[in-house]
Structures are given as structure tokens and as C-alpha cells.
């Protein structure tokens, strides 16, 4: 599938992300936004995007942004909180612009609102640890 206009395919290296991808991204003023186009693999028996898929997308997008904030140092998820506000379906475009909340010497705090056509359907916040930083 061709990326939507203005987007490029995100380089994925984790096997699980490659399995559930592709993911697309665009950069505005140095900040990356990420896009998931929901397809039949991502939905449950009711045709609704699976919560596990949304959390995987959040882990990927907030993790990539945390990595950007950590000057490309390796980071691992310490904790993540998710709120599921509204369902999304196959064909929906889900977009997030992860926000850096705080960065310390050893931790990065991130959050993100995930939107379909402007409406927030899911929000996540997560804490990341920089490896090798106490």
C-alpha cells in the first residue's frame, strides 16, 4: 500500500511491529506524527479495532517519540496507562502526535491522544527508562 500524501512509511525493526504494521509518519517542525490505517487484521469479531492493537500502536509511537527525546538512546517501557474512549473500525485512519511531558536524566514521560477524523478515540501516557542511566 502506498503511504497517504505527505506521509512516509516508518522504519520498523521490531518483529512484532513489522507483524502488525505498516505504520506511517510525517514530521512537522521536528515533531513526528504517526498514522495507523486500520485493516481487517486489527479488528475483533465485532469489527472494532482491538485494544491490544491500540496499545501496540501507542507503545510504538510514544516509544519512537521518547527515543527522539532521549537523543536516540535506547529506552524501555516502564509503565503505560490507556483510556479507551470510542471505537474505531477497519478503514479508519488513527493519528497521534506524541507529546513529551518531561525528560529527566533517566526517565522520559510521554502522552498522546489518538484521533480519527479529529475526534479522540484513545489516549495513552507512558513512562520510559533510558537504559544505562542509573
Amino acid at each position: 500500500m502506498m503511504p497517504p500524501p505527505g506521509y512516509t512509511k516508518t522504519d520498523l525493526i521490531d518483529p512484532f511491529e513489522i507483524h502488525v504494521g505498516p505504520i506511517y509518519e510525517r514530521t512537522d517542525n521536528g515533531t513526528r506524527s504517526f498514522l495507523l490505517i486500520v485493516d481487517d487484521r486489527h479488528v475483533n469479531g465485532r469489527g472494532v479495532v482491538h485494544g491490544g492493537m491500540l496499545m501496540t500502536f501507542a507503545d510504538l509511537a510514544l516509544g519512537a517519540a521518547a527515543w527522539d527525546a532521549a537523543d536516540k538512546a535506547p529506552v524501555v517501557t516502564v509503565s503505560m496507562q490507556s483510556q479507551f474512549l470510542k471505537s474505531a473500525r477497519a478503514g479508519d485512519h488513527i493519528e497521534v502526535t506524541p507529546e513529551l511531558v518531561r525528560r529527566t536524566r533517566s526517565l522520559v514521560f510521554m502522552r498522546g491522544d489518538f484521533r480519527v477524523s479529529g475526534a479522540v478515540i484513545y489516549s495513552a501516557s507512558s513512562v520510559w527508562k533510558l537504559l544505562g542511566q542509573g
Partner: protein
Amino acid sequence: MAEELRFPEGAEDISTSGFNRFIGPLYRLPDGESGERRYCFPVADKHMNAAGAVHGGMLMAFLDISMSRTSRLESGAATCSTVSLACDFLAPGRLGDLILSRVRVSRRTRTMVFMSAETWAGDRLLLTAQGVWKVA
């Protein structure tokens, strides 16, 4: 490694369609001694990240599926929806692990199910979680 794992007696495949099948196989196990609901999956190459650990998204998806199934079993409802889920990552999962989840119901009302859960690989505690589900 994965093909050498032996599933406990009574394992039921809960990944027969949709996203569950796409990331599965996943199994429900007989309830634990204190009544907790139990589930498991064998870690395969597709579940990994590039650092050699099980991807956090896979671990959260497995907990979401474990807790969703539990909320349906407890409420008797055909469908339940995740409202919120908080996960803490205590240790990494590895290729070849048989990962087990244990889910306990803290409170159930007519419309909501409140749960806590843990994910284990052998004697290693990988995740702790709390979540709220809405009974459809």
C-alpha cells in the same frame, strides 16, 4: 523451543478469529486454586522486539485479551469493552517462554468489571496491571 512446551490439561484455544488469531495462538487454562482466571501463550519470533525481549504491545494485548475474556466469563455478557488499562513492566519476556496471566476480579457491578492481573514467565513476574471493563 516453543514446540516442546506442554500445555497444562484443559487448555482451550481462545484465538480462533480476528486480532487474537493474528497474534496467537493464545489459550485459556483451568482456573487457579484461589479462583483466578488463567491464560497463556508460547512466545514466538513474531512477538519479539529487536532487543530480544517480548514486545510490550504483545504483552499488553495478551493482558487485554485475558481481562476481556474474564469480564465476559464473570458478567455473562456476550461483549465487554475495555475502558482503561494500566500496565507496569517489571521484567522482560524471552523467546521460548510460556507466558501465563492470572486475572482477579476486584469488583463487579451491573455495568462494570474491575480487575487486577499479573503476567508471569515461570517464576519471573513480568507485568502487573489494573483495568476497568464496561459490560455491553
